[in-house]
């Protein structure tokens, strides 16, 4: 149990654009312990979302290692990778784009249960109802189409899908950025509850340092594909050392400024 849940070292991803190669992610290393929240913060274009996609093997890195659950995650392929995916889930920024436009709430939650053989066909409807209740929704939402429910409800369904397979790590890519402020608070509370009860670790990607300070244990500040600064979330947000950290804090709107 000494090794961390997720450890990333030397991760690098190049993109070629018009003959020039740009490092979207440049030699990045970090780790996450079980039940911990690590926030990745940074301006847009700093490579935060690319990190999310690399960690989930949605894009392949050009260099580096990803160790997850004591396994070399990059060495996995095919069926082995698909089965491991149950332990590593993701919530996307835009809850409408994250679902098949033809799907219903029930189908969205049924897929992970079916694919990973978590519940038999007959038991799945009850499992789906329980998942909906777990994220603060009523089970009668199940037959509704995804486009018929509100943005906040959709993001709750996305979280329900992510926890359906009982993962140990969820990557949240700007998961609350598209929500309005009151809904954002509720979703953050739900995430904190889930973490406390199920010991889920979060890789929380955000450009909003206020949210980061509220939810994360540690933060890594990104700039141009590199980690500029890392440390305890409150310490870093309250007194950033790096230039980019100070710029991000200065850019955060504050209403209670004296």
């Amino acid at each position, binding site marked *: 149990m000494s090794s961390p849940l997720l450890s990333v070292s030397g991760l690098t991803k190049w993109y070629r654009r018009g003959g020039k190669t740009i490092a979207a992610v440049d030699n990045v290393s970090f780790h996450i312990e079980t039940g911990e929240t690590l926030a990745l913060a940074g301006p847009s274009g700093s490579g935060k979302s690319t990190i999310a*996609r690399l960690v*989930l093997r*949605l894009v392949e890195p050009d260099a580096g290692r990803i160790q997850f659950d004591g396994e070399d995650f990059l060495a996995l392929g095919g069926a082995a990778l*698909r*089965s491991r*995916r*149950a332990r*590593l*889930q*993701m919530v*996307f920024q*835009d809850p409408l*784009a*994250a*679902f*098949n*436009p*033809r799907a219903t709430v029930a189908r969205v939650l049924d*897929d*992970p249960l079916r*694919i*990973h053989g978590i519940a038999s066909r007959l038991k799945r409807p009850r499992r789906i109802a329980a998942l909906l209740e777990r994220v603060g929704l009523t089970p009668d939402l199940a037959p509704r189409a995804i486009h018929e429910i509100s943005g906040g409800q959709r993001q709750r369904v996305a979280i329900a*899908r992510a926890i*359906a*397979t009982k993962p140990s790590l969820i990557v949240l890519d700007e998961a609350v950025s598209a929500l309005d402020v009151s809904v954002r608070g509720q979703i953050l509370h739900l995430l904190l509850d889930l973490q406390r009860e199920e010991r889920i670790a979060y890789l929380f990607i955000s450009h909003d340092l206020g949210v980061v300070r509220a939810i994360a244990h540690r933060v890594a500040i990104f700039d141009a594909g590199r980690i500029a600064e890392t440390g305890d979330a409150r310490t870093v947000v309250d007194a950033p050392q790096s230039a980019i950290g100070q710029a991000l804090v200065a850019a955060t709107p504050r209403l209670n400024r004296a």
Partner: protein
Amino acid sequence: MNPLRRFLRTPEALAGAVILAALLTMALAAPLLFPGDPQAIAGPALLPPFQDWSLPLGTDRLGRDVLAELFHGARTSLAVGLAAAAAALVIGAVIGTLAGFAGGLVDEVLMRITDAFQTVPSFLLALAFVSVVGPSLGVVVVAIALGAWTGPARVARAEVLSIRERDFVAGARVIGMHPLEIAFREILPNALPPVLALSSVIVAAAILTEAALSFLGLGDPNRVTWGGMIAEGRTVLRTAPFLSIVPGLALVLTVLGVYLAGEGVVETTAVRRSLS
């Protein structure tokens, strides 16, 4: 407003629907109105239309009832047209989805095969296929589909290329869905509308190709086809032009009906898309 009523509001769509409905009724009613073999001799040879009311459209060179042949021919034309178009759409959608989703070498190989089929004139392809395998209804369907699937394949591939970058596809991968299930259950249904918009053109082309094959004597010899009727009438074109004109008119009306109805469907779905 429900889609059917919106569909029937445009005059073109209404005309197309009426023609297709009439055609469908003809095809379905053929064995009831004209039981028995339509190729059996029913009266004197070369009876002109509107002379004998038991044989309203007259008889052909062998004394067969032209109206009965016309009704039974509608069955063949519709069956071949719809089956060939359905086959072409299915093959095209599957190949296009595989090429677009897999990318890389698979895409390259599948699209070069598509190119190869597209460079050969589709009628020539059908002609060659039927002459080699031998004429029968199934072979004619396959022969026509062989030349028609490339259009749907290209459209499906283009759609899939744009859809596969969307977040919900990444979401399906994250939950561990098998790539084939992602391709055919998540992506293909969303790529289908523009592919289906091609169907009216393909059905119309298939009906014409079938008629042309029959005209050349490569249709199913055991079935009455409009193309075969035109070919029969060709030898007596000067003395009994109606033998070619009647099935010719039926063909023109059918193709027109399919086009108009297809146009109407595209129109209504376009309206629905812009509304939502």
